[in-house]
């Protein structure tokens, strides 16, 4: 059907925090945007029944964090009108989000949105940051516990990705979607239906996140530790199959660490001023407090070599970081404490940590490990994981932690894997084509992309 190596296939990896999309065969995704939408009205919010679902997260110990249902997001850049998604006549849906507003995803967003106010809201395509910060928004993510729960939101995000970011017509390009390792059969069929019925794609392939990462590191058998924005997933891959039952997910991801750092700094009296609150020569939209905290995390934090304890780290030298408003802050033990939450979440609260997950999944077999995902870019994380695993595994087991040395490769390993796969000449016979879909139906996806 598609000859040669030059196929303009599109590869999409929708993570819980960001969605990566781009052309197959390229080194990095063309578009990286938040996988969440905001729903809001430009008139003051007045519907009481919605209030309980909408609250600021003011305490890091909030129980909602433990359930992994908090989906903070940032960088409000794009905005467009929803046509098919939520389907409410007088509503505005925006991809991107607002500063600091972390909202629990309602269990049934449709129901809540259905009762949204009958305000005569208007669509605004662009507003000043200050104005936006005053507006009230829902931030909705399609993910719940690492799997897609709301397909309407997925639809809006994909629609945005195709039409605003990649500027393509989905009818013309085969699509390779990276799916969460824990996806079940219904969800895969649902994805196939959406792609063929709504977007009328000529061909589709669903590849598991963990498999793509594992392959991109040259291994067909491995244990993949994918530490991303919204969650950390540990998935064993054997000969290109994900062992579904053994996949484990922890709600601790990069976003959670950013929260920890912010709170920790605030408790020391350091206030991070959002960029919009002071005047600058150049106004760049979409850079808020979270973003700054996230940048601090990425710049100065590193995983400690040994488990963190308050006494031994109290004397470490401070690292300076200059905030956008010019003031320089000194970050001491938080540099190490924050990443250590990944290993020992009891530093914050009692959630089972990454290590116990890793052990259960590996179940004493000498599987090589692999690190992927945005949070895995943390300095020294690889070394720490290797050391801890060696200590805790039986002597006979050989443990080898692999992680790409290149930060981009680590961050986008799933996408890059998909990109290479979809661009292979020999792969072109593997696509689940539109003709096959029409003949056999959506359930055929289980045969084509096992």
């Amino acid at each position: 059907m598609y000859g040669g190596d030059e196929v303009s296939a599109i590869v999409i990896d929708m993570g819980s925090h960001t969605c990566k999309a781009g052309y197959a065969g390229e080194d990095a995704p063309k578009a990286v945007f938040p996988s969440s939408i905001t729903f809001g009205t430009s008139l003051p919010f007045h519907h009481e029944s919605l209030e309980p679902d909408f609250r600021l997260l003011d305490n890091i110990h909030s129980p909602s964090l433990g359930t992994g249902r908090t989906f903070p997001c940032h960088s409000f850049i794009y905005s467009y009108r929803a046509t098919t998604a939520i389907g409410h006549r007088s509503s505005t849906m925006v991809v991107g989000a607002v500063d600091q507003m972390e909202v629990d995803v309602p269990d049934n967003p449709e129901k809540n949105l259905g009762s949204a106010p009958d305000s005569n809201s208007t669509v605004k395509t662009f507003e000043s940051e200050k104005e936006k910060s005053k507006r009230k928004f829902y931030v909705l993510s399609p993910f719940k516990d690492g799997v897609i729960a709301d397909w309407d939101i997925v639809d809006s995000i994909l629609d945005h990705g195709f039409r605003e970011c990649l500027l393509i017509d989905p009818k013309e390009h085969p699509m390779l979607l990276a799916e969460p390792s824990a996806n079940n059969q219904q969800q895969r069929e649902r994805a196939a239906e959406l792609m063929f019925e709504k977007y009328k794609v000529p061909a589709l392939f669903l590849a598991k996140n963990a498999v793509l990462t594992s392959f991109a590191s040259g291994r067909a058998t491995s244990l993949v530790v994918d530490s991303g924005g919204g969650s950390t997933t540990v998935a064993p891959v054997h000969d290109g199959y994900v062992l579904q039952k053994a996949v484990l997910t922890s709600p601790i991801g990069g976003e959670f660490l950013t929260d920890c750092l912010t709170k920790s700094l605030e408790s020391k009296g350091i206030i991070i001023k959002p960029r919009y609150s002071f005047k600058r020569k150049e106004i760049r939209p979409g850079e808020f407090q979270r973003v700054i905290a996230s940048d601090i995390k990425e710049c100065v934090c590193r995983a400690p070599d040994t488990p963190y304890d308050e006494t031994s780290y109290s004397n470490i030298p401070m690292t300076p970081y200059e905030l956008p408003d010019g003031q320089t802050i000194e970050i001491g033990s938080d540099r190490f404490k924050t990443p250590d939450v990944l290993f020992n979440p009891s530093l914050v609260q009692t959630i089972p940590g990454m290590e116990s997950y890793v052990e259960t999944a590996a179940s004493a077999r000498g599987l090589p490990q692999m690190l992927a995902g945005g949070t895995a870019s943390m300095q020294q994380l690889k070394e720490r994981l290797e050391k801890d695993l060696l200590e805790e595994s039986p002597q006979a087991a050989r443990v080898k932690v692999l992680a790409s040395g290149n930060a981009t490769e680590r961050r986008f390993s799933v996408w890059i894997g998909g990109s290479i796969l979809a661009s292979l000449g020999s792969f072109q016979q593997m696509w689940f084509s539109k003709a096959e879909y029409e003949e056999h139906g959506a359930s055929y996806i289980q045969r084509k992309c096992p």
Partner: protein
Amino acid sequence: MANAASGMAVDDECKLKFHELKAKRTYRFITFKIEGQQVVVDKFGSPEESYDDFTNSLPADECRYAVFDFDFTTDENCQKSKIFFIAWSPDTSRVRMKMVYASSKDRFKRELDGIQVELQATDPSEMSFDIIKSRAL
């Protein structure tokens, strides 16, 4: 068929040579590479060659598949041999190459009937002679 398999074809020569290694024992090892859109035979090693000759024949920054016929004596003083399949993908090789080899491995291995032990290695320490010995017993 594994998830995300590349659909790479296997040259008949691979199967023939492997059969010779297995049945006639005319080779100590065979290495395979992916060229164009199929897996083809890369190099052979005669029965006299050692394990070191074999490891030296693997390129340092390119992926390969290899089969190695390992002769050994068990604790009960019994002469035995086992056929090893090794997926060699060094850390220094390009991502594209690693991806291609890893996603084609399952299909290729199925074509070679009679492999007893399988190894994957990203650096020489993972396929040292000690590891080969411990896996054979």
